[in-house]
């Protein structure tokens, strides 16, 4: 899975968690939780959706790698 596919997957899952969020305006290095107003439960469902989407287990200690769109895409592409 290359970075471009990873980004697309991430945006898809974010769309489910925050349906009314405007993903196009999301800067690649902006903190996902702040800009999309995700509380801990939203973030947990994002992790849940993402791990299902890519078919990989994501542990708590890897959460920081998913802080921004850019870091998350890199992480997912790397693990793919």
């Amino acid at each position, binding site marked *: 899975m290359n970075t471009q596919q990873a980004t697309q997957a991430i945006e898809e899952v974010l769309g489910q968690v*925050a349906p*009314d969020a405007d993903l196009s305006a999301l800067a690649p290095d902006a903190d996902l*939780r*702040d800009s999309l*107003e*995700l*509380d*801990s*439960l939203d973030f*947990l469902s994002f*992790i*849940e959706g993402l*791990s*299902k989407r890519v078919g990989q*287990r*994501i*542990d*708590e*200690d890897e959460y920081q790698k998913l802080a921004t769109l850019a870091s998350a895409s890199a992480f997912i592409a790397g693990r793919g």
Partner: protein
Amino acid sequence: MPALGADMDEGTLLEWLVKPGDEVHKGEVIAVVDTDKAAIEVESFAPGTIERLIVNPGETIPVGTLLATIAEPMAGQVAGKKQRAAGKKAAAAGKPMTPRKARRERTAEPAEPAHLEAGSPLVRHLAEELGVDLERVHGTGHGGAITRADVTLAAATPAPQPGKPTPPRTAAAALARQRVTPIARRLAAELGVDLSGVTGSGPDGAVREADVRRAAEIPAVPRQAPRPAGAVSPAQARLLATRQVTARLMARSKREIPHYYLSDTIDLTRAMAWMHDRNRELAVTERIVPAALLLKAAAVAALRVPALNGFWLDDQFSPGGRVHLGVAISLRGGGLVTPAVHDAADLPPLELMNRLRDLVTRARAGRLRGSELTDATITVTNLGDQGVELVYGVIYPPQVALVGFGKVVERPVAVDGMVGVRPVVVATLAADHRATDGFTGARFLTTMSDLLQRPEEM
């Protein structure tokens, strides 16, 4: 014209069988009349001489109209007939019937609207009935279709008529169009609750008995003249209503409740370690977030310090008994609801986590049950996710306490003379000084802190 049948209103004279001057005796057939069924012979009920034939053949006339006149019998008639009341002008027909009903003018058909508006016939009919211009209504249905609820809501918020003052009836009409069950409407009247401020938990947002009872605890604030609101989408309208309820609640709380505030910084090292270890084994769908642990601690502490778990009613404290933990949940786009997790103290953290997850999802979908909204015995607000370190809340009347949690942060902490970096959270308590004193509040916070040092026992 004789009545020749039960269902006959009029008849057509086909022909006369006699002419003026003819002698006729009783029962003699003198004319033929056409009815719906058939041509029927008409007999004379009196003997005498035909005087004048009034109606001409071919004319259709109502039953009872005079057909002809017969002069009474001459002197030489058969003796038996003489006793017949002399001089009675025996007409062929009986007393005249009432004139035909004036032809009912067809009332003008209402002109069919020129163009077909969006929305199903039912919606268009409802809009027409409630005087709502469908153009201005924002559809929340599938594919943006306008639903009946949208129309009802649009009707409830009067659109600003340029220049023309909205007729006084609009407020009442707006009220009438809101869906309220009869008992709820009656109860609202009895308890003096202003229905327009009440959000319904029933089908299609219908206000039900329980909703009014809950609203009744909030004193009705006299409504100022309704501000002309711009075109409001149903979602906004619902948030507006929620905002009004919260506003009134907070105003009353600050007005009536003498709050005192305490705070304590709680070391979460053990709690977070325990959580991470558990999460490592758990599937994503069952993982716990720190908030779940904090809620659990608050619930158990409320059980151990019952003076903070209950209500201040009629100038005295009535204990809540079981702990129904109110959880402040922010709705997307603003607004706050505080549904309760029932018996939170008895739930293990994992189960409490599931309940929390369920509550949040349903709160945001507007599908909370009436009972969940009304019976919290103590409430917690957690703004950690929003990055705030410390929050002093406002108590939800008639409760007597509100627990606040800030963000879980890493802080340098001195432990046994050594400085280390540890995860901590600032827990606060806002409490009603009528019900408890600082001493009890402090005991509550220290109890929570002790509980969080032994997470595995919660």
